[in-house]
């Protein structure tokens, strides 16, 4: 079973994402900060995709996390989907430059549509 790491600090959203991913046959691990996510990556040794919020996930932002993953031989090929309500246009550009698969604005997109794209990437 493929595993998706969900980095999202808003608990109601995190729960909805988890439920919908699981409904789509995917295993889910959740983290509320970049630090937690890094710990999980080490523990798991493997994830198939990352759902990443940009803002207020601990002291480091989603960008720091993407930079770390793309700099690591082990994790650089893992598809990353940044989903945020707050990232500014230049931040979105930076995400895309760093090599994420796609950027979504939460409020403007259906959950099902994002998960469908994640599934395609795995």
């Amino acid at each position, binding site marked *: 079973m493929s595993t998706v790491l969900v980095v999202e600090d808003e608990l*109601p*959203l995190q729960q909805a994402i988890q439920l*919908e991913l699981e409904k789509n046959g995917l295993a889910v691990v959740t983290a509320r900060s970049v630090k937690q996510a890094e710990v999980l990556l080490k523990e798991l040794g493997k994830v198939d995709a990352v759902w990443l919020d940009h803002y*207020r996930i601990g002291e480091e932002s989603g960008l720091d996390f993407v930079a770390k993953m793309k700099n690591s031989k082990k994790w650089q090929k893992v598809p990353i989907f940044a989903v945020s309500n707050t990232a500014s*246009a230049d931040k979105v550009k930076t995400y895309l430059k760093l090599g994420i698969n796609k950027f979504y604005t*939460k*409020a*403007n997109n259906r*959950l099902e549509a994002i998960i469908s794209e994640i599934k395609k990437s795995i």
Partner: protein
Amino acid sequence: MSLVDLETQAINSVDVGELETAQHLLDSKKYWDYKAEYKAGLDKYVMPAGVDLDSATSISTKALDTAQNDLLKLNRLKSYVIYGLIAFILLSLIFLIIVLNRVLLSPIARIREAANSVSSGNLDLRLKIESDDEVGELAHDFNNMASSLKKSVTNIEKIVSTRMAELEKTNALLVGRDVTKEREIDRAKTEFISLASHQLRTPLASINWYAEMLADGGAGKLNKTQKQYLDEIYAGNQRMVGLVNTLLNVSRLELGTFIVEPKLTNIIELADGVILEMKPQAEGKEVSVITKFNKDLAELLIDPNLIRIVLQNLISNAVKYTREKGKVWVAIDKDKEDVVITVKDNGLGIPEAQKDKIFTKLFRADNVKKTAIEGTGLGLYIVKSIIEHAGGTVSFTSQENKGTTFTVTFPLKGMEKKEGTRELDS
């Protein structure tokens, strides 16, 4: 009258200086007739006595000529005396003028010139006092006046300089306060954007996703009424998302933080895409959308996101404010150096009295407020802001209950790139 009378009269005339009268009398025919008659009479009596009458009369004529000549000389002398007197008076006047000018007028002219110079700002000018008379006193008073004026002006300059320094300090404080206030306002606006984008959008996303999950049967199958209520919640939430996005766009336009990123874009495809999105609303009211596109215009250097927002607002307004089975025309063409987008409808129209407010933020016309048609009153404001930023124009013609035509133009050469922090949400 006799010959003697005529001659007496002539002599009298000479005596009183009326020479012309005397000459006239002596030249008259009457005189010579008398004279001839008189001579003939005399000749008749004296000739027999051996007297030469012509010699006798020539003596009296000579005496008369002499008298006339004397009189002429006298008159000439009188004229000489009169002319001499006039010349003397004129010479005396000229002399007097010269003396006056030297003694009186020249110093006055110098004082006048000095007064003009002082009035032009030369406050250091002083007159040289050359006499003890009234003119000298006037020059002395003039110098005193110039000195007083100089002192007054110096004092005023000092006062003005002090006041200016104080004013500059006050201005600097006020400007400082204004700048601080502006920064506070900017910060408040930025905070609003952050609040709207994070604090509002996050719960909106939550409602969206849970409503979506419920509708998909994630929490069990819904009955018809539950499904209907859920659809209302979802639709209401979508409107809220739309409103938040619109408000964010307004803030970004006002703060100038929006990005303009021109890229070669097929404007016809862009318009077709917007019309396709609008299809459910148009078909729901049986409104037909008729297009007329100039295919030569396909590739333009525009920000597709911004032009999409412009087209979305204009076309959705046209569809919204047109009655059932109405018509909407969308045309894209070029005119010299401009792209021309025309969106026309045969809908509600804009009331004459409110036409000047149509681009005002949050304004909705009275006739549309009476209907159940929803709107934020922000769409046209956003369209105008975007198009004016792109160096274009937005105009309209409208007649209530007949319809409205909006015309947007912007340069064919495209839009200029602008750095910013936010894209506008379409």
